[in-house]
């Protein structure tokens, strides 16, 4: 708290609604996510679920292929699932922040009567999830390298492609996450399903765990309309190098083209999320949903 207080005391931050709201919300989000247990138990919790999730796929793969982990499809599945942890965290994180504030902690009315930037606040609440997700991704990938000999070598990783694509991918996801959160504000029922349904659909249609070519042809265009598809492809190429080109899904696109497509998604989704947030806030106030407690 001492460090956080020092940051909040910086005059430029104190007087900038957006920055102040973002930072305070990030700190608050981290406290909510992590303060329910001691650090060891929290770490176990943060690691166990993602590892179990990826091990399900590993066992499925091993049962059928008799442990042929050297085949190119294995790193495709493993890495896609590992990277997807971040997608799930960001997409569902902001929606859950709305649900927590409104239904669980019952502080929504105080938030929306305080001098904060609600849009920046929502972004901030997602930051803790991004942090936890990033740590989980790194651990799951390290686990894969050590146990299943994933062909990732630090010297051959294309770091610039990885960093740029991840920055753009997370920004696009943050835009989607805030849109989901904003829509959650306008719902009195099924609000918990919104983030999870979208995250589930992205898992299926973005080629996260199997090449898009396997989807029925009429569903494939859906995959090409999602930013996650391009981020996963770019991140796989950056981490695996030439091995990642073993599938035809997006082989026709160069790395620069992938980054350009991701940048276009960011350019649409970030401003779009602000518009959706404004509309949702207005609608929630109009319908009296801003601080509704449904117990649903």
């Amino acid at each position: 708290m001492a460090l956080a207080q020092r940051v909040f005391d910086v005059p430029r931050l104190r007087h900038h609604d957006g920055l102040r709201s973002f930072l305070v919300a990030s700190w608050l989000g981290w406290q909510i996510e992590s303060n329910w247990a001691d650090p060891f138990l929290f770490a176990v919790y943060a690691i166990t679920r993602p590892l179990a999730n990826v091990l399900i796929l590993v066992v499925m793969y091993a049962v059928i292929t008799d442990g042929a982990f050297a085949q190119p499809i294995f790193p495709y599945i493993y890495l896609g699932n590992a990277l997807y942890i971040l997608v799930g965290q960001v997409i569902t994180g902001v929606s859950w922040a709305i649900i927590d504030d409104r239904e669980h902690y019952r502080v929504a009315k105080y938030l929306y009567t305080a001098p904060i930037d609600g849009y920046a606040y929502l972004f901030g609440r997602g930051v803790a999830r991004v942090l936890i997700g990033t740590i989980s991704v790194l651990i799951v990938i390290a686990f894969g390298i050590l146990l299943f000999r994933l062909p990732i070598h630090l010297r051959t990783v294309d770091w610039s492609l990885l960093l740029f694509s991840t920055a753009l991918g997370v920004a696009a996801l943050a835009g989607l996450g805030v849109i989901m959160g904003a829509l959650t504000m306008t719902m009195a029922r099924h609000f918990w399903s919104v983030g999870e349904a979208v995250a589930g659909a992205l898992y299926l249609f973005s080629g996260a765990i199997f090449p898009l070519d396997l989807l029925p042809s009429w569903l494939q265009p859906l995959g090409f309309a999602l930013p996650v598809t391009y981020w996963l492809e770019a991140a796989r190429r950056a981490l695996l190098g030439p091995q990642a080109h073993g599938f035809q899904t997006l082989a026709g696109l160069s790395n620069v083209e992938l980054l350009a497509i991701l940048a276009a998604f960011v350019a649409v989704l970030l401003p779009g999320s602000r518009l959706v947030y404004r509309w949702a806030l207005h609608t929630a106030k109009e319908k009296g949903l801003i601080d509704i407690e449904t117990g649903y």
Partner: protein
Amino acid sequence: MDTEMDGERVVKRQGLSLFWATMWARAYPRMVGAFRERSWLFFETLLPVLAVSGYVFIYRAIQAPPAYTGFAVLGGVMTAFWLNVLWSMASQLYWDKDQGNLEIYVMAPGPLMAVLLGMAVGGMVMTGTRAVAILLVCSLLFDVSYQIAQPLWLVAAFVLTMAALYGMGMLFASIFLVSGREAWHLSNLLQEPIYLVSGFYFPVKALGFWVATLASIIPLTLGLDAMRQLMFAGDPTLGFLPVPVEVTVQLVLAVVFITAAYFALAKLEAIGRQQGRLIERRR
């Protein structure tokens, strides 16, 4: 016992009759809710269908035999019951405490064990509708074919698995009640790791004898294994144990869990009263 209330004759139930009435009273909102609020059906079918579809496409990507599509579908169907046990049984008394219902249950004359049993019966009916919907949609989408050779064994395996599973949920309800706000995180933690060790999406035998044996404490482990053997009469070597053995273990688990739930509830209610934690609310 009869009594007068506002000029009306009211029958006051006692003993088994009170237990029976309390159980159905608690089951009622869940059973009625399952049919009255049909929009749940869409969301609670859609999410598992998406998850199952992912696993089916992975099996297709690695060219697994067609029976594995059925394995994944059946696992997806059973996740509905596991999630119901976690979120609507194990965590339920915690939610009830948070919303102020628990103290009303405790003050009312009906036994708490009947309340728990009512939650289980209502949960089974409610989740059963979702499970049937998931099974139908996935079976049609992925063209799953079933070969049921011994329907009576299949019914026995399913019924006893449900009894053991919801008995475990009743036991967890007491344990989660004292775990306070960690209940939420406990339920979260018991999702994917249990899908893994119980073999929701692959034959549990693949995990090896000792892991599969330890995982058998979760009723769905042997329940799923038995149902897979009975619904997909394919390679018999895929099963972990013979079906009669698995069904017998489920029967034992059901008795043990329900008995343990009874004693745990009595103990935790006493502790809760002594320490004043039945009405405490921590967020």
